[in-house]
């Protein structure tokens, strides 16, 4: 079956051969590792730069989804990988479950119910990628071949290199867009792929690009954030932010360049990364990110970057200046799909969303979904629809093979065969005609992907945590589940309104706890799981306001206290809010100290001395 072409980047024969060669290169490395010719330490950075980690019980694969964009054909292959390859042996799976059960009993504090481990599953990440937890390493080269068959790979999804580039999930469709960031994201993806000089940086380097007035890509939280905007003369350029990041030292990236002509973006990033490669610390991985360098030496860093940028022009003649021809070639691939262009405005008799006569409960459900999961589109007749992967009984962002296939069906039928992975771990359908909304709602409901909770408390972000991740200090999924269960009443969640709740199982912050209006961070004290709660963080979106890390509420809480604390904090909010005032605004108006007092009053027991303060 020939699937309709999505309006996304289409691989050239060169692109295709390149990732096939990359898959072959990885197979050779894997073979040498198995033959004992490559040690574990020498194989490690090679497998990492192809997305292969070693986790608590099994390898983990992170598949790159450049700027979050996927075709239905790619979704189907991701489903196949979940079904056929995310399958540990019975012994391994039982062993892993037994070990996890021990954590539950060893930790007196962990009295909340713990969901069983799951397999045959894909997981959407906060960097718009897709992860698997159980693929055996000896199958890894086969999986890379399968991915390459649909123009996919795991290149630079890990390792100390320029990582997969993220963007606004509404790129090219948002009403508030100044310019589509995807052509630049794609050109930067190509430039950064297997860059010879920048393959072994001091630490990972994450880039996010956005092109709208609202920052939906948390750009200030990245090593390098790019915001498209128009200069005084009307020309397109980037505001360049450098040195943001989460982890142990949460920092917001300052603006390094207010306006950079858009075609200079590679030249400028080359200068930034070269200066970082030279001066970034290599003696301590916790101080190796560019944010530490910027915090300590921002002025000097900026001077060196300017000098290097000038040399790239004067001495190298700026060979990576983006040509009009290349920009036009790439931009053409992101144009509005033919089907949408021909439909737009044609069905003019439909002035409103089609809503067949529905009674009571059903009508109410559709209305809620329209309000919560459907957003305005740059085209009048179209809507942006978010499929919710936040529902009871499954971890945030988890998708079974069947659910991925159902999502593929929906995007083929309703959205020109295209979806976007969101940094909040859901899927967006970018091209839904308003006349189709009701049919789509029915189908999405049937598929279990229509919980009307987008942007609400239960649309929480959570990392895989201590159930799967070797780095985690504590489990995230049981906490996410206990909050989901406590707040299963949709009326209550709707009444609370928009809240960003972010959960990380360790200070690496994959669950973005620093940027949550409410953040939860797993910490380990004497081998037990505890949770630090922060309030008032922002990812830089309109709702949260200027990007900022949340402030810590006292010592950590035990797992079974967490839900109660969230409950008390939200009750205090609903008692103190002004009409239509969202949680984060009430928190800012009433003040952190009042909320902190409420949170601390919900403490049931005293935690041991806080390990995180050491």
């Amino acid at each position, binding site marked *: 079956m020939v699937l309709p072409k999505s309006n996304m980047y289409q691989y050239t024969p060169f692109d295709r051969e390149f990732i096939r060669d990359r898959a072959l290169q990885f197979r050779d490395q894997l073979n040498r590792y198995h033959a004992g010719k490559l040690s574990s330490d020498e194989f490690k950075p090679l497998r990492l730069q192809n997305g292969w980690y070693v986790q608590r019980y099994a390898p983990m694969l992170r598949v790159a989804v450049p700027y979050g964009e996927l075709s239905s054909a790619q979704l189907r292959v991701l489903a196949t990988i979940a079904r056929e390859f995310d399958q540990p042996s019975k012994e391994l799976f039982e062993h892993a479950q037994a070990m996890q059960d021990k954590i539950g009993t060893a930790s007196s504090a962990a009295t909340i119910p713990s969901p069983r481990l799951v397999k045959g599953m894909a997981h959407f990440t906060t960097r718009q990628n897709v992860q698997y937890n159980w693929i055996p390493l000896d199958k890894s080269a086969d999986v890379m071949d399968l991915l390459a068959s649909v123009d996919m790979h795991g290149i630079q999804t890990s390792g100390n290199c320029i990582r997969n580039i993220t963007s606004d999930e509404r790129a090219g469709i948002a009403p508030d867009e100044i310019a589509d960031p995807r052509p630049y994201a794609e050109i930067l993806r*190509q*430039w950064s792929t297997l*860059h010879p*000089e920048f393959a072994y940086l001091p630490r990972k380097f994450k880039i996010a690009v956005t092109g709208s007035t609202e920052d939906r890509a948390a750009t200030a939280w990245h090593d390098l954030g790019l915001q498209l905007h128009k200069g005084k003369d009307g020309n397109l350029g980037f505001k360049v932010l450098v040195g943001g990041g989460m982890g142990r030292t949460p920092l917001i990236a300052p603006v390094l360049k207010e306006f950079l002509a858009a075609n200079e973006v590679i030249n400028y990033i080359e200068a930034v990364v070269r200066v970082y490669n030279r001066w970034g610390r*290599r003696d301590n991985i916790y101080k190796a990110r560019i944010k530490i360098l910027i915090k300590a030496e921002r002025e000097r860093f900026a001077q060196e970057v300017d000098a290097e940028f000038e040399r790239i022009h004067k*001495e190298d003649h700026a060979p*990576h200046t983006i040509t009009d021809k290349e920009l036009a070639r790439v931009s053409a691939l992101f144009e509005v799909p033919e089907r949408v262009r021909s439909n737009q405005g044609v069905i003019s008799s439909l002035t409103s969303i089609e809503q067949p006569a529905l009674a009571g409960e059903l009508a109410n459900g559709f209305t809620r979904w329209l309000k919560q999961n459907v957003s305005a589109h740059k085209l009048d007749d179209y809507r942006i629809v978010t499929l919710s992967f936040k529902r009871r009984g499954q971890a945030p962002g988890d998708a079974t093979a069947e659910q991925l296939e159902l999502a593929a069906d929906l995007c083929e039928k309703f959205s020109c065969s295209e979806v976007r992975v969101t940094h909040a771990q859901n899927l967006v359908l970018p091209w839904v005609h308003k006349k189709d909304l009701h049919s789509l709602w029915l189908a999405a409901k049937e598929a279990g992907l229509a919980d009307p909770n987008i942007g609400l408390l239960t649309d929480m972000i959570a990392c895989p945590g201590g159930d799967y991740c070797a780095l985690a200090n504590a489990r995230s999924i049981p906490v996410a589940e206990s909050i989901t269960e406590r707040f299963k009443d949709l009326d209550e969640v709707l009444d609370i309104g928009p809240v960003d709740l972010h959960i990380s199982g360790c200070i690496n912050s994959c669950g973005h706890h620093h940027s949550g209006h409410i953040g939860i961070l797993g910490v380990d004290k004497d081998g037990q799981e505890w949770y630090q709660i922060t309030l008032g963080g922002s990812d830089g979106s309109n709702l949260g306001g200027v990007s900022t890390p949340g402030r810590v509420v006292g010592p950590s809480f035990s797992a079974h206290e967490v839900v109660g604390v969230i409950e008390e904090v939200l009750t205090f909010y609903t008692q103190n809010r002004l009409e239509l005032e969202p949680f984060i605004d009430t928190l800012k108006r009433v003040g952190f100290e009042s909320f902190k007092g409420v949170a601390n009053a919900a403490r049931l027991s005293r935690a041991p001395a806080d390990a995180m303060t050491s």
Partner: protein
Amino acid sequence: MELNLYHLNASAPAPLKAGVVELSNDADPLELALEGVNSVRLYFPKFTDGRAFSQAVMLRKRRGFKGDICATGEVLIDQLIQMARTGFTSAELRADQDIEHGKRLLKHFKGFYQGDVINPKPAFARTDA
């Protein structure tokens, strides 16, 4: 530019000949005196330390250095492709490294996206020509 591969003789390291200089990992190649220098030895304290790649690029692009740039330290065959593309012309491999396999790895990819020392223009600018 060819990358000349040979094994490090760890038991009897050759003394530095005239015209050969070693540049330390944290030194600035823009300040290195190159008069009478035929070969610059750049050092990889660990194979995952990428500073010498930038140093080699600077020597080629900014200093116009035409002599030999040799990779020393922890030099493994899986990093040869990066070395060749950043301007190294020789590599002193650890004794256990398979040089023949390294030569095959150097030819593995048919092309790359970004410009490098060998081909300064990126693929998109080359197809313009």
